[in-house]
């Protein structure tokens, strides 16, 4: 039986500083997961990935990151994505510090 497609966002790292970035529905790379486009359809995901790969020289390692719908936009769909979205747990560094 085919696996059910789980929601994703398109993510990457910024070429200049390595920070985690996400693709919006308006084809912009942004820093916050909640602003990302949540993709719930597999065919749409393939189409958007192809678009993202061609979109920007500043995005490194473009991939489909597991996510889920939240009250304020997409939320991390995997522990790794939670760390990418917020920062490490041993120091108050990364996006959690930038947002504070």
């Amino acid at each position: 039986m085919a696996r059910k497609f789980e929601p994703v966002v398109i993510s990457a790292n910024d070429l200049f500083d390595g920070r985690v970035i996400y693709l919006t529905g308006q084809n912009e790379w942004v820093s916050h997961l909640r602003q990302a486009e949540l993709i719930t359809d597999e065919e749409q995901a393939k189409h958007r990935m192809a678009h993202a790969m061609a979109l920007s020289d500043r995005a490194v390692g473009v991939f489909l990151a597991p996510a889920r719908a939240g009250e304020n936009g997409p939320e991390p769909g995997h522990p790794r994505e939670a760390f990418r979205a917020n920062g490490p747990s041993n120091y108050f560094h990364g996006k959690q510090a930038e947002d504070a």
Partner: protein
Amino acid sequence: MYHHSEFDRAFVVDRAQRFRDQVNRRISGALTEEEFRPLRLMNGVYLQLHAYMLRIAIPYGSISPDQMRRLAHIADRWDKGYGHFTTRQNIQFNWPKLVDIPDMLDSLAEVGMHAIQTSGNTIRNVTADHFSGAAADEIADPRPYAELIRQWSTDHPEFQFLPRKFKIAVSGSPNDRAVVKSHDIGLRMIRQDGEIGFEVSVGGGLGRTPLVGKVVRDFLPVRDLLPYLEAILSAYNSVGRRDNKYKARLKIAVQELGIEHIRELVEARFAEIRPLFDGSDQEVLERISQQFAAPALQDDRSTADYDAARDADPVFRSWADTNLHEHRHPDYAIVTVSLKKHGATPGDATSEQMRVLADLAEKYGIGDLRISHEQNVVLPYVHRADLAALHAALREADLATANIGLISDIIACPGLDYCALATARSIPIAQQIAERFDELKLEHEIGEMKIKISGCINACGHHHVGHIGILGLDRAGVENYQVTLGGDGTETMAVGERAGPGFSKDEIIPAIERLVQGYLAVREDASETFLQAYRRLGPDPFKAALYPAEQKAA
């Protein structure tokens, strides 16, 4: 210690300049990421979870006060004010920007440091016993040989595109403090009929296939070191698999072809190569060795103050009991400074702590510092008369934790908090174990205990050779921790055995506590270490402590 020659200086400056050009071309779009990635990896630049990571080599763990201060400067100027010392005697910075890395490399080059070959499928940073040149049990100082290997392997044209990364470690003592048999090549110095040479093992490694290295040559004369290493690398380059990266390490070739076959290949190649070495390598070794000449040590100072301080101050005595190691000179001690304060991130040092260590090395330690594979800092030459003052200074800098070799002296990889490969966190587990046993006030009662934690099967935290190893895995999006028992990273190296089902992140700390309490209940007396008890009794009593419910059900 070794000081860079004019050739070395020109070489690292040139490499930094070339990388600057490569970065510029990547940013301009002249290079694609596919083209740029191998170039950045050749210069120690990874892309991790949150940012780039720059891995800087500290060859055989040896670092001068000025170099340590430069690392502090880099941490402050281009990172977040700290650095992470690793199990391969490197330092990693977790937050640099790509555009800043050329400046960082220029800054390193000014003090004879670099990031060359700290990643990629090449010969990595050569590691060695962190007590080299000072240990009482040493046959000979391994650092000149490690430096010779560094010079030979750096930019060696034949070995830049090996099937996989390649690691070499050197120990100058019968007591192995460099985990030599977990390396592709392990060199253990021995004396035979009055001559110094090496026992050479190949095919060791941890990771998803942990294997203990096998002896390929019982005794290798010093003069044959480079041709023999070249023969091993050459044989590996020809038989190492390139079709599957998980089977590409030398250890797999040794496992699949057998040590006899590998030995035949190596010896045949050695016979071809040996005549090509005309002795100039021995001249280089001689020049290097002069730079590692034993320092003049003081024989005219009393150690009475040390004895008085031990008697008067139980905090100092506790630290001295755990953090000092026997020196070849009876009036001196080797001091290990713990980077494992209870609850801290193992191996991390702030820029301020780096500067303090540099100052203290100059004031009390004849300007010599080492980074250990156990992620601590070593001052190898401290007169016993200075130990009390050194301890007081370390306390002020929050660097006087008395736990070397104890349960909170945990090796832990960066894990899921930083690493793109990790599947579970390592650092918080290490922090919680250290804090729990500090609360219980059992640490010194437990005695020698090596806990090592990895956040994935790549085993950067050396969990396979921990007396208690902890391997973090991802189980359907949930962190899960497997325990291994009986690992040993010394001259009696052994790979730990998996104890049973894994534990959730909420269960693992109580499980470790049960395991350690179980050990305390079955040991013969306080002198029997966990590893000794495990070897005497086998795994059953330890598994019973870990899985009490299953034992009752049975």
